[in-house]
């Protein structure tokens, strides 16, 4: 260790120093470490670049696209459901309006029928009433005549019973005059 002028000897010294201290500072295996590190880096780089990253990137993009598609499809279905609901509501409202119209129409028709029936019944009733009134008048007239007859007969009988004699004509005139009075 006296002659440290040659490079080999210097390396030897450094080696011994490293052996006593930090193995990291021993330059005798630097070349080895660097070589194998470069090999490792190159291997990892090309494995990633050529095989792994395109594959993983593709998978991720695929998944992203799938999720976006699914979301879009879900949105579409939602819109469809909304429009279906709207159509249903529209149809319901329309049906309701139709039903209301039919009800009103039917009501009007019934009212009309009813009015016609009432009018018809009224005329029939009026006719019946008029007929009845006529009959009553007839009956009443009939009754009057019968009363006149009875009165004449009674008066004639009375006169005969009291011993008088009177001709039928004068009795009738007297009774008629009395009846009027």
């Amino acid at each position, binding site marked *: 260790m006296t002659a440290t002028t040659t490079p080999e000897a210097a390396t030897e010294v450094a080696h011994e120093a490293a052996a006593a201290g930090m193995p990291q500072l021993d330059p005798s*295996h630097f070349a080895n470490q660097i070589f*194998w590190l470069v090999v490792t880096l190159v291997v*990892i780089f090309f494995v990633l670049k050529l095989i792994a990253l395109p594959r993983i990137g593709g998978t991720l993009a695929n998944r992203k696209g799938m999720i976006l598609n699914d979301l879009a499809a879900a949105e579409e279905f939602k819109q469809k459901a909304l429009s279906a609901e709207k159509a249903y509501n529209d149809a319901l409202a329309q049906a309701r309006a139709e039903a209301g119209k039919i009800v009103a129409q039917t009501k009007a028709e019934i009212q009309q029928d009813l009015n016609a029936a009432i009018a018809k019944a009224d005329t029939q009733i009026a006719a019946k009433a008029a007929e009845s009134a006529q009959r009553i008048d007839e009956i009443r007239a009939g009754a009057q005549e019968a009363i006149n007859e009875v009165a004449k007969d009674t008066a004639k009988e009375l006169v005969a019973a009291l011993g008088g004699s009177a001709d039928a004509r004068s009795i009738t005139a007297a009774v008629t005059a009395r009846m009027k009075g």
Partner: protein
Amino acid sequence: MASEAQSEGGLAFHPLQQFEVHPLFGEGPIHWYTITNSTVWLLLVAVLVVAIFVLGSAGRKLVPSRIQSIGELGYDFVHNMVVDVTGEEGAKYFPIVLTLFLTIALSNMLGLLPGSFAPTSHIAVTAVLGFGVFLFVTLLGFYKHGFHFLGMFWMSSAPLFLRPVIALIELISYFVRPVSHSIRLAGNIMAGHAVIKVFAAFAPLVLISGFGLVVTPLSIVAITAIYALEVVVAIIQAYVFTILTCVYLRDALHPGGH
């Protein structure tokens, strides 16, 4: 040093032994191609990346399987980071950034397995990463903007007489970036592992002396706590390294902050 440690009541303090690089097969000098413990753990990182990101994503399921969702989580996390920091045109550099993130994060996490080796605890490794990012970003800046890239150092909004001073400071801080970038990572990982090892060295004290009745449980609790902290540090340091890479990338894509 080893003999000193042995003399201390039989406790063995070798907190830095775990960082030694040694050939996996046989003895002898470490050539550049020798397979060492460091090599194995680095290659395991690559194997893990393949397992999670290639085999895990092979199903391409719409509803991801567990491993697939880990890969997609990592993809999304780093992709969002790159796009948020650098903008849409930075997405081109996403594979590079993800490579860095995965290498560091997985190496940190694998390094936390008992008996394993953390390549990121070595400055030789992190310096390659840090200076690699520095070189890449600087060349990219010049390629994209030519000498306008240097306008990054010339604060046109500052008073004229301050501009040279600011430019000098900016220039120095620019060149310090890779140093801090790499030392921060290696330092954090190394310190955590060394601290765990120090506490671990105290754990067998109960076999030797009565103090152990107190010290051993304490050291075990401390190891657990530090280990939990280290899990967080492993991820945070990978995140910090990655987001700083994104920030440097943004400076290269948009010098002058716009």
